[in-house]
């Protein structure tokens, strides 16, 4: 059973869909666009099943890497090393779970170059899974950075009016952050003489000083842009607004998490002293992110932009949680990332639902949607409340854990972070009232139809998971706890603390 290279199969399975789509295009010119949708859906569902199989055989009682695969490649330059622990498997599941949903969500919406679109999503899925599986520092960089190509194409080809500007901004901003990380990676590889992460963990050890701080800042440049943290977040609202619905979902749910994952995988274990040294800096940025972007979200006129800013605010909790160096904080941060993946995905899908009917994202164009789309109103209510962090939804658990951890670390920061929960209620409920309630001012709203079957299929699983993990978060916490404890224990601060 374990002999199969399951992680490689999981990672590269989505690519199997590509030749089928191309062959479909060649032999059946009439209907190939439909065929490509079915192929993509089938492949992504099989990938999801394999990820469940991996979860089924996953041992939650060890913090060691599991499903290891190791092949030296490129004449010793790097190693193809894959493996997962409790932290990465969570994000792998999130990726494999959301990709089929994204494909269903795009089913009737994308009409232009469907085959390219499906290929881009399958490639994107491979790269996302690969990023979380890679245990070689160069291999990680390869996957992490390659994500730019399909995402650039998705935003640029199927995006909204200002798609070119947004795609370029996304691409160059992220690239600039990443090249700095590349310098740090090369430095670490040369200093430790290997590219394999588990060995680097043991070997790489430099004293806290200017070099460690610079390395930390180089990693920070990449992850903070990806996360995104204030003030490196400006690409995100543009990218979110212009990307097609499914692109926004993947962007918010998975790509942003790569930043947090990077902090957990690299910054904390490799550069612990600098992480500790800069933790106040991270807290300040996070507090600004939470408060400032919440306020900015409140004045947005565009629904997607509002959700994008709310993402930045929620990511503030994640970074704060991670840099508390405390088991609650790290678990809370990871849980918050997972739950934000579900919630922001659900919110963007909901926005997609009304956008496809009205072709406007302006809040002012809506109002009174509840009278024509009651089911949709119910779904959006649950998602909005989850985004606010209401107890009983998954949004609560992560925020509660992180705020608790921050409280034990620094009470002033905890105060500001907690105020973010109130602020998120302010803009969240305001958006809900403006869109769903109030009088119908726009005649177009009167003729709206309620959710179709396809839309329900995409929203119901998310709704179930958000409530399930809100009431009973234990499965997720069990999955990540051993690895998180292992991570916390592996952080040896040389001085202080």
């Amino acid at each position, binding site marked *: 059973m374990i002999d199969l290279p399951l992680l490689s199969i999981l990672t590269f399975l989505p690519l199997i869909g590509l030749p089928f789509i191309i062959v479909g295009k060649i032999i059946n010119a009439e209907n190939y666009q439909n065929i490509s949708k079915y192929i993509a859906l089938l492949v992504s569902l099989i990938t999801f099943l394999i990820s469940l199989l991996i979860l089924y055989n996953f041992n939650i009682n060890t913090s060691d890497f599991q499903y290891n695969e190791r092949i030296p*490649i*490129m*004449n010793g*330059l790097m190693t193809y090393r894959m493996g997962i622990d409790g932290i990465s498997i969570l994000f792998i599941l999130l990726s494999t779970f959301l990709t089929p949903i994204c494909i269903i969500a795009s089913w009737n919406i994308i009409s232009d*170059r469907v085959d*390219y679109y499906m290929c881009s999503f399958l490639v994107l899925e491979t790269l996302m899974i690969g990023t979380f599986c890679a245990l070689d520092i*160069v291999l990680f*960089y*390869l996957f992490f*950075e*390659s994500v*730019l*190509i399909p995402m*650039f*194409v998705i935003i*640029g*080809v199927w995006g909204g009016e200002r*798609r*070119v500007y947004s*795609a*370029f901004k996304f*691409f*160059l901003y992220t*690239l*600039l952050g990443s*090249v*700095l990380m*590349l*310098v740090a990676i*090369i*430095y670490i*590889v*040369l200093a430790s003489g290997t590219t394999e992460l588990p060995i680097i963990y043991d070997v790489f050890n430099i004293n806290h000083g200017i070099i460690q701080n610079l390395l930390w800042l180089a990693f920070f440049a990449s992850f903070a842009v990806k996360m995104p943290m204030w003030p490196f977040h400006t690409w995100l609202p543009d990218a979110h607004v212009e990307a097609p619905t499914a692109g926004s979902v993947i962007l918010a749910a998975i790509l942003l998490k790569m930043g947090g994952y990077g902090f957990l995988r690299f910054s904390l274990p490799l550069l612990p002293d600098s992480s500790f040294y800069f933790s106040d800096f991270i807290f300040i940025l996070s507090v600004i992110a939470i408060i400032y972007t919440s306020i900015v979200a409140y004045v947005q006129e565009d629904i997607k932009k509002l959700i994008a800013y709310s993402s930045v605010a929620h990511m503030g909790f994640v970074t704060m949680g991670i840099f508390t160096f405390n088991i609650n904080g790290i678990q809370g941060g990871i849980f918050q990332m997972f739950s934000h993946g579900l919630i922001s995905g659900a919110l963007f899908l909901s926005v997609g639902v009304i956008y496809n009917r009205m072709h406007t994202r302006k809040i002012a164009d809506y109002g009174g949607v509840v009278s024509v789309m009651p089911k949709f109103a119910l779904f959006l209510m649950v998602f909005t409340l989850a985004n606010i962090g209401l107890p009983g939804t998954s949004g609560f658990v992560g925020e509660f854990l992180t705020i608790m951890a921050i409280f034990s670390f620094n009470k002033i920061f905890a105060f500001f972070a907690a105020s973010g929960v109130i602020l998120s209620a302010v803009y969240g409920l305001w958006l809900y009232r403006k869109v769903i309630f109030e009088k119908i001012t726009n005649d177009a709203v009167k003729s709206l139809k309620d959710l179709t079957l396809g839309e329900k299929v995409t929203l119901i699983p998310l709704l179930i998971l958000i409530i399930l993990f809100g009431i009973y978060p234990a499965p997720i916490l069990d999955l990540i706890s051993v690895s998180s404890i292992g991570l916390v224990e592996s952080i040896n601060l040389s001085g202080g603390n």
Partner: protein
Amino acid sequence: MVDLFESLIIIAPELILALTAMSLLMIGSFYQKKSINLINTLSFLTLLILSFNELIFNNIQIFAFNGFFIEDKLSSFAKFIIFLTSALSIIMSANWLRNYDKTAFEFPILILFSTLGMALMVSANDLVSLYLAIELQSLPLYVLATFNRNDSFSSESGVKYFILGALSSGLLLYGSSLIYGFTGTIFLNEISQLTLSSNQLGITFGLAFLLAGIVFKISAVPFHMWAPDVYQGAATPVTSFFASVPKMAAIIILIRILYVPFDNFISSWSQIIIFVSFSSILLGSVVAIWQKNIKRLIAYSSIAHMGFATLALSTGNKSDIESILVYMIIYIVANIGFFSCLINIQNKTEKNINNISDLAGLSVNNPSLAISIALYMFSFAGIPPLAGFFAKYYVFISLINEGLIFLATFALIASVIGAFYYIRFVKVMFFDEVANTKKITFSRSLGLINSICFIFILGFIFVQSVTPLANMISNATLALN
């Protein structure tokens, strides 16, 4: 030392090339129109056979003609690449040539002569043979630049290239004479023993002039001015040739000049190289942003790429030659691939494809062309997992290993600026909405070349892991130790 007969055997590939070129010239002048296919085929086959000959028979290190000619792993490897790329250039230009002028049989022959010059150049072991070889490769290039003689741009570019090229040859010759004057020898390996006991200032002076002449050939800043005009004016197959083969030869001779005779002057020349490479990267990346013409843009892009390649020289460490060779191979393959697409488009469409905006909407009806060009552009920009990323990765490993971290950081930031104009190609082809474009099929030869380049660039990880390329490169690197 080996005697004359043995020397002739050592130099046999170059002799065969010279004889082939001359006999083809005779065939061409007697049979004119009828012979063009024959000449194309024969010159292609000769180059192909010679390139595999270099692959199979290569010597550790052997001198011919009393040290005028050196044959080692580095020169063999360089000749393998040069012959192969020239052979590809001949096929790539065949269709264009047939449409352009059926009587122009001299085109492949000029390429042969220029290739001969380059082969002698990478094997040159004294300053005189170096100068003669450089002239032999340059003169056909001047003619090739003006080959599109109905086009005033082409004539202008040829004249510009000729005048500036002559100036650079003058600089090179002046530098050589200074070095000869101060050391009393022209042999590269003897110079290295005499440099320390001679007048330091004079040799540094000579070295600077010598470098100026060679840097001109790789079109790096500050001797880059000819490149945009020549690239733009020349016919596209000629541009493709300019952008790939002579660069390889010039880089190899640059490596040889710096590491063989001036091994003891690393501290002097590494500053020059740092300046040349960093300013090339910066200028190539920044100025290209405003370019609308495809070939002009590629010219600036090649200036930037030469900057990256020479960056690995600035460490002054012989083992970093490996990074340069890897960089050059990846650069050449991506270039050939890109130009095979561009030439194919130009052959099959009536309207002129000069500006990037002429490629608009290419992805709608020609997905294979659009995806190929996009891949090469992402590779030029250095996005993983494409080959272009590894090219930069090798160079930066060399730099950081020598402690040049800040140089590496700035160069990487400049490469992000460069990424902007590469992804503009993708934007034009994929994002812009344009009315129907014509459906273009790949001609067989160009399609084959493109698919080989495509696979190489996309699967460089496998190429490097599985094929003997990596070994060949490291053997070539060891040649100078």
